[in-house]
Every structure is written in C-alpha cells, then in structure tokens.
C-alpha cells in the first residue's frame, strides 16, 4: 500500500488515500510535513521580501557620493534578501522531487524572480539618476539618436536594446535610468525562466524545473548583472533559444511549428541585440550538431554514428539563419569589420598587447597588493563567474567517467551538451587573447557561465535530486529522501547558499571587489549639462575621471548627435594627474598650452579611490583636501560652476605659470 501511494501521481489515486491522520501511512505524513515546510518557506520568502522592501523604501536616498551601494543600505536588508532567496531556493530543492506540486514550484520561482528583481532595482530606491556612467550612457545616447532623428543611428549595430529603451522612455514615460533598470529586471526574469526551461528540457522532465530555478538564483555574472549591457543581457537569451530549439526538435512535442517560429524570431533578435552573442549562438548550434555524432553503447563504449532522424537542412537551419542575418546586418558597420580584421590578424600570428589577458596581467603587476588581499578582490570580482566553467567541465568529466552508473551520460544529449560547452569555452578562451571591445573576464565568460548553470542543473538533478535509488536505502527523513542522496542534496544546497551570498554581495561594485561605484548623480547630470552648454571653442577638456564628459555628451545629444558639437568631438578627456599637479605641471594652465582647458571635477572622482585598500590607494588618482586648496590658490584657473557634487574650473589658456 505504501509503495502504491508513493507512486501515485494522479489526483484520482490521491483522493482514494485514507483521510484519517492516524490511519495514514508514513509516506503520506511525509508529504504533509513537506507541505508544511513548503508553506513555511513560502511565507518565509514573502515576509522577508516585504520587510526588505520596507527597509529600502525608508532608507534615505543618496545625498553625497556612495562609495558602495550595498554599504548604503542597512546590513539587515542584505540578510533579509539572503533569507528570502534561501527560503525560495530551499522550497525549490524541497519540491524538486515531487511531480505534483506545481503551486509550490511557482512560489519558489516567484520568490527567486521577485527577490532578484528587488536587488536589481535598489539603485532606484537609492535615488540614482543612472546606475552606470560607462557604457550605459552610450546606450542612452544611441536611444537619444532615435529620439532626435526618428531613425536608428548610423553607427548603431545593435539597436534592439535601444528600441526597448526608447519604447519605455517615450511611451511609458520612464527616465533613462529607470528604463535601463526595467530592462534589466525583465531580463532577470528571462535569465531565471530560460535556465529553468532549458534544464527541464535537457532533463526531459518538468521535475528538473526546481533545481533549474534554484541554480539561476545567484547572480553568477556578478557586477555585470547589475549593468544593462547588450552583450550581457543578450547572452541571457541563449538558454532560451536552446530550449526553444529543443522544443521544436522534440519528435512528439506539441506545437513544433510554433516553437520553430519562436526560435527564428529569437535568433533574429539575438543578431540585433549583440553580434558577438550571435556568433556564440552559431558556434553553439554547430557544435550541438557535431556532438550528436557521438553515441555510447550500453557497455559504455564510445563510438561515432549519425542520427538517422534528422536531415542536414533541419540540423543547421538555425545556425544558417543567424549567420545570414549577421552577415547582412552587422558587417555593414565599420566597427564590426575592424574588430573582425583584428581577429584575422591575430589568427595570422600578430600579437595583441591590448587584449584582456595583457590588460589583466598588467593590472595585477601594477597593483602590488598583498597576496591575500589580491586573492580576495579577485575572488569577489570574478570568482563566481570563473568557478562555473571549471565546475561544469569537472562535472561533465565526472559523469563521463561514471557513465555506466548514470543513464543520462550515455545519451547523445549529454555529448551534444559537452561538445557545445567545450566549443563555447574555446571561443571565449580565444577572446582573452584578442583585443576587441570585450575585455573584462566576466564579459568574456558570460556565455560559459550561463550555459554552465543550465547544464549543471540538469546533471545535478540526476545525481543529487532525482529519487531513483533503491528503496531499501531510504532514511525516512522529513522530505523522504534516501540518506546518500540527502547528503548530496545538502551539499548542493550549501554550495547554492554560498553562491547566493557571494553573488548578492558582489552584484554591485564596492570595496570588496575593488570596483568603483559608477552611478550618475543628479548633481553630475546638472553640472555636465552646464559644462556642455557653456564650453567655448577652442578648448581642451580635462577630467577627474577617465573618459568622463564624452559619455554625458552622448547622454544629452545622442551618440551620433555628439559629432555635431564641433570639430574634435572624438578627442578623449585628459585625465588629470593624481593630486592635480605632477612633476612637470606646476600650474593648471600648463595642462594644455595655448588652449583654454575646462576641468570637470566631481565628488565621484574624489571619493572613488576610497574603494581601494589603503596600501594601494597611492597608486590611484587621488585628490585630497590639500590638493583642492592648492588648486584654489592657483591663479591660472578659475572656478566657474559648483553645485556641491560637481565643479567646473577653467584655465586661462596662457600656458605660462607665474
């Protein structure tokens, strides 16, 4: 009777079960305990999140420059969001065994999406005008081009995000900063739902949804998950595309044509979202088909054989579509062709010193940090993203080694995933040595991390979650797991909690990861607007931060409209030396001889070095109180604008120091 009940998954059989508590067998009571626990966990994440909302709403907004956004909120808020995600993920792992608890899964899924969305919306609660002053300002500029000219910018080779921004800003009346955060939050849903769907499709059962959602909960891309960059958010579409593709290829799956249409629409979108991600997609789909050539016999022997079910045209159809659209669209832009030329030169053996690996090694050698601090900063800055590919490869190798034990490791799907992953890993590995616009390790590893999470969820579902061990080994614990499997699940849960902890603490820049808080304050926006409208040509622009004013010019005039500002629009700002004055710079007028120079100074530039450990702060561009006093006494420079957070100074242009 107990076994029958355990196997009963249909409601008819459930209703036939005895109703009296005392008469109920052990498994039914176990279900009751699991239900109670699931309810508690559901209420747990909801209450934690409501409290976190309350705390965020009542925390004062940023008055001066925040060195770190996490530090600006009370620590209890971070404990509350951690508790909310732990409850939601606990619920997901708890119910991932049961085939019949959709509502509980929905609760866990909602918990993960809601909590992550809340964390990603914190810049709005803190009152930031825009959460990122680097690339995001250029994307606002591209969007501004559309608003000013009514057409896409002539250099806009990835217009998808800019059109989404435009729709939100001009149809739904958001601010530019809000539009970016709303897009980021929407893509957080795509990230979680995409990984969940792919894990379920790969595992071949909806029960894998739970672990898929739980694995999508940590911010695996760390600070890049808080920036709304097309390169990163487009990568979040890759698991979705793969899941759609699998749905369209399923021989017995309903709505194959609909899935195919959705796949083609998404593949096209991907090209217009970011061409590099589209290249990753082509490589992944070609590798996926090559992986299908490997099969494993029942005795574990590996051999090459073709699958008879598919014809060449439908095998590579999606790759061909992406390639054709990519060639037709992206290669009409000069920036793409120049990057491709760099790649070709590298393939011919030309060394590239501006590559990511070159830049990273120079940074490490310059930093002169104690090893423990360096490792801590590296771990907080890149650790989680870098660990995922390592874990994925290790897990694939483990499953391969134990293929006699794990049935899924003998399927073609396992090999497809493995070959795809290695191909993507090889592509991103090669990008480390080439100088393109993509240099940050997280940006380079984004696809590896996203696909790795989906694959890990699939494999660990079979290894740690799925109840397939013999009944004799059951331990009769509260959730009815076999003892050995319970340990495995506990290990997965612990790793998940650690990933949640590191992810949430490093999703925003700060002293822990050594990154500057790049937010744009309202004072900066107002000050920059004054500067841009009051500069008189000819002039030279010097700034307290690198590449500073040009991004605000994009913000106000559009990326293309910036060119209309006059000759020399492409010139980058002169980054002011540390302490304003160097050995050869006795007065501000000698910054740029014979030309009037505007100095853009801000709290952001003054406070940003505080993120660095005290030992190495001297290597950064720092400006202390005595430096500001010295600047005030310098009779070759006037102070003409001040709003408390942003100042404009202008030199005489004579170039002679008294």
């Amino acid at each position: 009777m107990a076994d029958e009940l355990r196997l009963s998954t249909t409601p008819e059989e459930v209703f036939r079960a005895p109703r009296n508590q005392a008469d109920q067998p052990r498994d039914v009571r176990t279900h009751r305990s699991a239900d109670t626990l699931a309810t508690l966990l559901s209420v747990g994440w909801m209450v934690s999140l409501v409290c976190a909302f309350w705390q965020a709403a009542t925390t004062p907004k940023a008055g001066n420059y925040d060195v770190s956004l996490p530090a600006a909120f009370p620590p209890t808020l971070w404990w509350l969001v951690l508790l909310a995600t732990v409850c939601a993920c606990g619920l997901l792992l708890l119910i991932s065994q049961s085939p019949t608890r959709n509502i509980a899964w929905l609760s866990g899924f909602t918990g993960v999406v809601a909590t992550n969305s809340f964390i990603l919306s914190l810049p709005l609660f803190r009152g930031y005008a825009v959460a990122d002053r680097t690339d995001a300002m250029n994307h606002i500029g591209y969007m501004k081009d559309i608003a000013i000219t009514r057409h896409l910018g002539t250099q806009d080779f990835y217009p998808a995000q800019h059109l989404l921004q435009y729709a939100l800003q001009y149809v739904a009346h958001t601010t530019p900063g809000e539009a970016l955060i709303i897009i980021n939050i929407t893509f957080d849903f795509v990230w979680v739902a995409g990984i969940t769907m792919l894990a379920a499709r790969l595992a071949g059962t909806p029960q894998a949804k739970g672990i898929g959602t739980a694995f999508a909960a940590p911010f695996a891309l760390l600070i890049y998950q808080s920036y709304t960059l097309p390169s990163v958010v487009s990568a979040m579409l890759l698991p979705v595309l793969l899941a759609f593709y699998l749905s369209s290829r399923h021989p017995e799956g309903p709505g194959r044509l609909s899935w195919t249409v959705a796949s083609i629409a998404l593949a096209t979108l991907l090209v217009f979202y970011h061409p590099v991600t589209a290249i990753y997609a082509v490589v992944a789909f070609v590798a996926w088909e090559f992986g299908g050539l490997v099969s494993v016999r029942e005795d574990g022997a590996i051999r090459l054989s073709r699958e008879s079910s598919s014809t060449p045209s439908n095998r590579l159809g999606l790759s061909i579509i992406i390639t054709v659209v990519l060639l037709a669209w992206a290669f009409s832009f000069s920036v793409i062709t120049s990057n491709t030329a760099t790649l070709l030169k590298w393939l011919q053996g030309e060394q590239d010193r501006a590559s990511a690996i070159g830049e990273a090694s120079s940074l490490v050698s310059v930093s002169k940090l104690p090893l423990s601090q360096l490792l801590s900063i590296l771990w907080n800055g890149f650790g989680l993203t870098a660990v995922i590919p390592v874990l994925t490869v290790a897990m694939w190798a483990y499953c391969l080694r134990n293929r006699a034990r794990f049935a899924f490791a003998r399927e073609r799907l396992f090999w497809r995933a493995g070959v795809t992953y290695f191909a993507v890993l090889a592509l991103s590995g090669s990008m480390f040595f080439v100088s393109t616009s993509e240099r940050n390790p997280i940006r380079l590893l984004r696809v590896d991390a996203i696909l790795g999470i989906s694959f890990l969820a699939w494999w660990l579902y079979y290894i740690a979650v799925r109840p397939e061990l013999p009944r004799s080994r059951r331990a009769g614990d509260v959730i009815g797991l076999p003892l050995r499997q319970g340990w495995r699940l506990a290990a997965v849960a612990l790793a998940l909690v650690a990933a949640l902890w590191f992810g949430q603490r490093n999703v925003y820049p700060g002293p822990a990861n050594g990154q500057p808080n790049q937010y744009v304050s309202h004072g900066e926006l107002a000050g920059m607007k004054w500067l841009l409208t009051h500069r008189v040509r000819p002039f030279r622009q010097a700034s307290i931060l690198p590449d500073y004013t040009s991004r605000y010019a994009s913000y106000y005039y559009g990326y293309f409209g910036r060119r209309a500002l006059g000759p020399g629009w492409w010139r980058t700002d002169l980054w002011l030396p540390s302490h304003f004055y160097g050995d050869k710079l006795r007065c501000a007028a000698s910054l740029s001889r014979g030309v009037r120079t505007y100095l853009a100074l801000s709290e952001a530039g003054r406070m940003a070095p505080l993120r660095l450990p005290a030992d190495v702060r001297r290597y950064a561009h720092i400006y202390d109180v005595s430096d500001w006093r010295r600047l005030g006494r310098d009779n070759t420079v006037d102070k003409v604008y001040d709003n408390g957070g942003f100042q404009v100074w202008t030199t005489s242009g004579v170039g002679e120091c008294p």
Partner: protein
Amino acid sequence: VKPSDAEGSLRRMTAFGSSKSRAVDVQAVGSPRSEVGWLILMMACYGVLIVFTLGEVAGLTPSGPARVLYAALGVPGIFLGPGAAWVGALWGREAAPEFYERLLVACVLSFALVLGAGLCLSYLFLGVTPISLAGSLCVVEGVGFVISTFRLRPYLAPVRVRLADGDGPHSTYLHPTMLVVSACVVFAAVGAAVYAAEFNHTGERFTAFAVSYKTAAPRAIPFTVNGPTLPLELSLQNRLGRSATYEVQGVVKGETEFWLRSGFVADGASWHRPVTISVPRSSRPVRLEIRLFLEGRQGSYRDLHLWLQRSAR
C-alpha cells in the same frame, strides 16, 4: 500532469473538479482555466498599450505617483502584451506550454516585435516616434489578439473556478495562503516604489551656482580684461526641494564689490542676474570671490572665484 489536448484537459477538469477540486496539484496546464486566464492577461496588456497610444496622441505627460504607475504598467504593456497575443495565436488549441514558458515566450516575442516595428519604422516608413511605435505595436498586437481569440474560442464558455479548500490526505493549504501573502508582496512592492519615488524626500538636494561672461555671442570669461569693467552673469538653480532665498556677495581685494538678494526662488526654478565688475589695475592677477549665502545657513554656501588682470593697454 499535462493534458495532451484541450478536450483531454476539459475531461480532467470535469473528473476532478466536481466536489473536491484539488486543482492545486494538477493546476491544469493548457486547461480552459489557464486559457481564459491567458486571454484576460492579453486583454489587460492590450488595454494598457491602447491607453499608452491614446495618451501619446493626446499628449499626456503623467507626473507624480501616476508616472510611477504608468512606468510600472509599461512593463506588461510593452514587454509582455504584444508577445502574449502572438503566443495565443501561435499555439492556439494545441497543448500550450506551461504558464511560465508562455510568459517567457511572450517576453522574447515582444522584444522581437518591438525590434521589428522599430526597424520597419526607421527604414521603411516615416520614422520612429512614440505615436508611431505605440500605434504599430497596437496593430501587431491587435492582429495577434484577433487570431488568438479565434483559436481559443472553444475555451470562452464560462468555466467555474474553485480554489482548494485544504482538507484531504494529500492536500496543500499553500494555495490560499500564497494568494493572500503574494498580494501583500505585490502591494508592498508597489507601495515601496511609489513611496521611494515620490514621498521619500531625502537624497540629493543642491543649488547649482555659476558665473559666466555676459555677452551677445557665447564667449569664455577673459583672463585679461581690456577695459575697466567686466560684465558677468550670475545664475543659480534651486534643487533643494523647497523655496529658498539666497544672497550673493562679490569681493575684490577684501572689499565688497556687490551684494545681491535673490528673493524667493522656487524649487526647480533658476535665478539670473547680470553684474558689472570693476577690475583694478594691478601687476598680478586679482582674485574676485563670489560667495553664495543660503538663508538660515551659517557661512557661505558656495564659493566661486575668478582671477582677473587688467590689460596694460
């Protein structure tokens, strides 16, 4: 439990949904309930987009808490609605994907439709404007909506919906609890967003203070002044979140050159005043201090300065 087709799901609902509706656990995927729910979602999103389009035509610019609500509705209106209509149109009566999968497909299809509409408007038609973009999305969504309604027609018959009541051996009382607490979460989220955006009056409060050269054509302030006087313009912008009164003092060589009082400057308003400075003869540059005082605050609030030298000619 996923019914293979619509009839199957209908039978399932009839079989289990009579007296003890344990629909919580079977949560019929592709069932009439979920199809009707999807239609309601589509209608709501379409309604939002129509309101947005009409708002653009009427030149509506929401402000205050209404703007926050408007922006919040923008997400389903633009990022869900167009795709949701086409999910119904594409899948129709076939066993549709699970609810979260439908939301996901609706999301990415919406992105693709916004992109498609933008590309077409930019390269083929009159250009991208708020009205043209919202209007074209309305048309695309409308077509999808008509096809969906046609394809989902069999589900439009009234369906009696019953919530789980919580007793029974394998029941769960998660459902009603979740409904209540989820509603609290949604209210808390919207309330917190509105409060933070409109009623939390902390944050950056500042006054921008600037000095520029008062000339017909834009010119930078000269370092060497040709005449005995220099025309300047002082300007300030109040972003303190309240009305304020300012005073401005100009000091040259320790002597007050001018003292101005602004009168009340409303929040967000600007104040401009031309002044003429007498530049004394001197062998070295003379420092002109311009100090801004804020009513009720000790000491100067902002300081600007210029170094001036009168030309020998």
